[in-house]
Every structure is written in structure tokens, then in C-alpha cells.
């Protein structure tokens, strides 16, 4: 079942994807089909099953609290689309975090 346009628009906003009307329409159909397919999961009995977030069962992987030198600022900024030599620059921020 295709998603509604509202659903597609809501998810796109969460993902910060600016989609054209055409893209939204196509995704509504494609995502609907994929979601219908993966909904087959519903039929698997998982009543007594634990969740697997990590494979392999490793625990307590940590490092000692040791400092390493930071990289040069020039290297940090080198790939930035816009910067002023010391900071990354972004356009006006209208929204609070």
C-alpha cells in the first residue's frame, strides 16, 4: 500500500531530504511496496527472542584516557564548503536546536 504524501513529507523532513513533488509521489509507491514486503516480519514469532544490535557479543571495549594531539586547523577546515580560516560558516539559523 503506498504511503500517503503526508507520511512521505514527514519522513523526508526528519531526514532533511528536500524532495520534489515527483520524487515524493514515486517514493510513496516504492516505499509502500518495500514496507509491505518487510511487513512479513510480523509473521515471525519473536515472543521469547532477544534483540541483536551487535553481533559477536563483545562488551566493555574502551580505551584508556590518553590524549592525542588534535589535527591542524587547516586540515580540519580543508574540506569545508565555506569557512573563514578559523571556523566553519553556515547560513542564518532560524531554528533553535
Amino acid at each position, binding site marked *: 500500500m503506498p504511503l500517503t504524501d503526508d507520511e512521505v513529507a514527514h519522513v523526508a523532513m*526528519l531526514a*532533511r531530504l528536500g524532495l520534489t513533488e515527483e520524487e515524493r509521489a514515486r517514493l510513496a509507491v516504492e516505499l509502500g511496496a518495500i514496507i509491505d514486503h518487510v511487513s512479513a516480519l510480523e509473521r515471525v514469532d519473536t515472543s521469547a527472542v532477544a534483540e541483536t*544490535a*551487535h553481533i559477536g557479543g*563483545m*562488551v*566493555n*571495549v*574502551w*580505551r*584508556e*584516557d*590518553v*590524549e*592525542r*594531539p*588534535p*589535527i591542524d*586547523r587547516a586540515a*580540519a*577546515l580543508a574540506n569545508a564548503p565555506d569557512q*573563514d580560516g*578559523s*571556523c*566553519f*560558516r*553556515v*547560513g*542564518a*539559523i*532560524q531554528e*533553535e*536546536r
Partner: protein
Amino acid sequence: MTDTLRQAPPVVDHEAVIGLEVHAQLLTRSKMFCGCPAAYIGSEPNTNTCPVCLGMPGTLPVINRRAVEYTVRTALALHCEIPSFTKFDRKNYFYPDLPKGYQISQYDLPLSRDGHLELTVDGRRLRCGITRVHLEEDTGTLHHAGDVLQSATSSLVDYNRSGVPLMEIVGEPDLRSADEAREYLVRLRQILMYIGVNDGNLEQGSFRCDANVSVRPRGDDVLGVKVEIKNMNSFRAVHRAVEYEIARQIGVITSGGTLVQETRGWVETRGATVSQRSKEQAHDYRYFPEPDLAPLVLSEEFVAEVRASLPELPEARAARLVAEHGIGEYEAGLLTATREEADAYERIVAAGAPAQLAANWLGNDVLRLANASHVPLRDSALGEAGLVSLLRLVHAGTVNPTTAKALLEELYSAGGDPEAIVRERGLGQVSDTAELGVLVDAAIASNAKAIADFQAGKESALQPVVGHVMKATRGRADARLVNRLLRERLSG
């Protein structure tokens, strides 16, 4: 505007319900998930970063073990339970100071839960529940061109702070007034500093607080509409903001209005909270387990080791000092305000200084000098041993307190052995009855007017007469003895 609200009728029919969320940076050497220094204050923008804390493609986080230990230490100090299984989760949202587009935090299985913090407000003991203490990473910082966010044409991003270990301490909504909220924060900050996990700097943001405030008719069990307040960077700001918000909410309710669940920012210059975001715009953070980090299974041994590293906490220490040293509760509270002061006090007493005297001096004159000079006693020229020697001279009556305090002032920065100096300069207290008797007689003779006033019933008239004797001995006279001799002569 604040003043108008403050003059509004006092809270009669409503009570406030306040819960505080504190974010405290940890005093680790390196950041939470990379080796960059955690101490970023004072660095030039973007000079304290690496590919990991810049969120560059392909980089991975690795947990800083000490950050886990510090969080557990905090949790234990707040009487929390430490579940054996805990994990990190991703909190997904977009903001320029968040380099990965998600913050590594903890969602449903935090490092600790169900603790409490005890406080005394207006002589009343109360216990505020601690919902949880969890561990996450700090964000970068934004600088806006122009002072107000909304009017800025561009913003600059600095990631020096990105990835600094951050504890979130969530308090239960057990507080009922701005005073209680402030005291909660004072006590919490004191504990964090005591156990060495946080430097308690509200202004620089290493200790930050958000408040959830609602009001309800007194006696109701149901919570009212909750408003979250942000942007408070001093205890005073928290107090003012909470007070303002309580009054505002009661005002809305009593004037028949409706409150909305929202986030409001405290604007210091306006003395008011201002709406930032309503619930309809609330985020959907899409938390899920961080696949890059294996979960933590903290053994009983691990927790026991951290517990063993916990110092005696301020309240317990103050109680012990009262019981063991016989000093007053007030002084004990002052002395245990910071761990450094309490340690200094105990060292000084152990080195032979009389307890009550040490408590009085450390809590007053020494503290004043230390604050004024920004040099703690230990690092002063006088040093702790010098103070011990000086206090012993006072206790033995060798010098009187006035002389001793003058010496403290001088020696704090200049240094020197108090005993030798007292001897060399002849500063020893004059307590010889015969010697003082002559001076007292002379003082009576030359202060006829004051004597007459005293004999007419004016108690205070005796002060200049005592002063006369003190002056004649360059302050070395035993003031109590002078008083006694004077009164004997005048009544005789």
C-alpha cells in the same frame, strides 16, 4: 516586568513542581570518543579537533574508560543503582554544532538510575530523587554574526567542544520552589566538584542546567502542563527564571488562560522566559542502539573499585568534623564547602593546630586572603605549617588575636616563621598584671570624660580607655586582662 510579576499575589492556591536536568562535563584528559584534549576552553576555534570529533566519513568512536568511571562515581555519590548492562544509543537530529547528525547518548538503559540528593532549605530537610545519570558527548559551539540568533546572517561553527564527555543528571520533579531548585544545584555542584568529576563552572558551561516547571492546584496529584526552561548560566539566573516561570504560569491559569507544553529560553536582559518551541514542533529523535559501540557490562568488582575511590562526601564530612573536632555545624558547613578547604583544615588540625581556632580562621580570615590573592593557603608564602605555628601562639596566649591577624596578613604573602618573628619584634602578648596596671592607671587618668560616662552607665565608654592601653603596648596587651583590671579599679 519581573517586578510586576513579583508583586503579583503570593502563591496561595497553586504549588510549583520543578525537576532539574543538569549537564556536567567530565574532567577527563581526553574527549569521550577520541584522543583530543577534553580541556578546550581558551583554544583558538577548531584547533582542538580530529576526524572523529569532526564526524568525518568512516571515523569511529571508542569509549573513554575514565568517563565511564566518573559517571559511575557520580551515580554512586547520588545513591543510584548501577545496572550491570548498559549501552549507548544514537539520538538523531540535525544542527550545525552536531557533526555526525546524531549525538551518542544513552536512551533506555542508562549507566545508572534511582538515586537521590538530600538538601536543607530554610532548615527543612528534603530529598530530591535522581531519575538517572547517563553519559553522552557534548556538541560544538555556534557563534552568530550579530547578537541575536534570528537576525544573524551567518553563523560560525567551532568543534573544539565537540565530543567532550558530558553527564546528564536528571532529577525527579520533587522540588517546589526556586529556593529549592537553587539549593539542589548548589549541593549537586558541590558533590561533583568534591568527587573530582566536574569543575562546576556555570558561566563557561561546564555545569549547565535546564528546568522543567509546572504548577498545579495545591493537593493535586496530577502534574500540570510542563514547560522546559533553557539558557540559564548562573544560580541566580536559575532562581530568577524559575520564579518568573512559576508566576507566569499561575498568572496564565488564574486569568483563565491555557498553558502550552513548550520550551522557553531565559533572557537575562529581559528577566523573562521566551517561547522557543512548542510540543508540535518537538523532535522525533529516532533513538537506536549505537552499532559502533559494544555495550558495557559493569562487573561488581568494577563498581566496587569505583566506590572505593569515592571520597567522603561533604555532608558526611561536616557531620564527622562536628562529632570528632567539636566545632560548630556552621563552621563545619563552611569548611566542607570544597574538598580542598576541608582537606586543608584536617591537615592543619592533624599538624597540631587547635580545632576550633583553625575552623574559625580558615572559615574567615584565611579564606578572605586566599580569595583576594587567588593563592590557596597551601601555596602561600606562609604555608599550612606557618599557620599552624601562628595558631599555636594564639592558643598559648603568646600573641593576642589582633596581633596574630595582622601577622597573618603580612606573612601570607611575605612568609616567615611566626614564632621567630614574634620573638624578634617583641610582639608577645603583655599579660603581666603589674606592668598593665601602671598603664591602666595612666589611661584612667587621661580619660576622665570617658570614665565619667562609664560610671554614669554607658558601657561602651570604656572602649577608648582599653584602646589607650592597647595603643601604649602597640596592640600587644591581653585585652581581656586590661578589661578586668579597669573594671576592678573603677568598681573599687
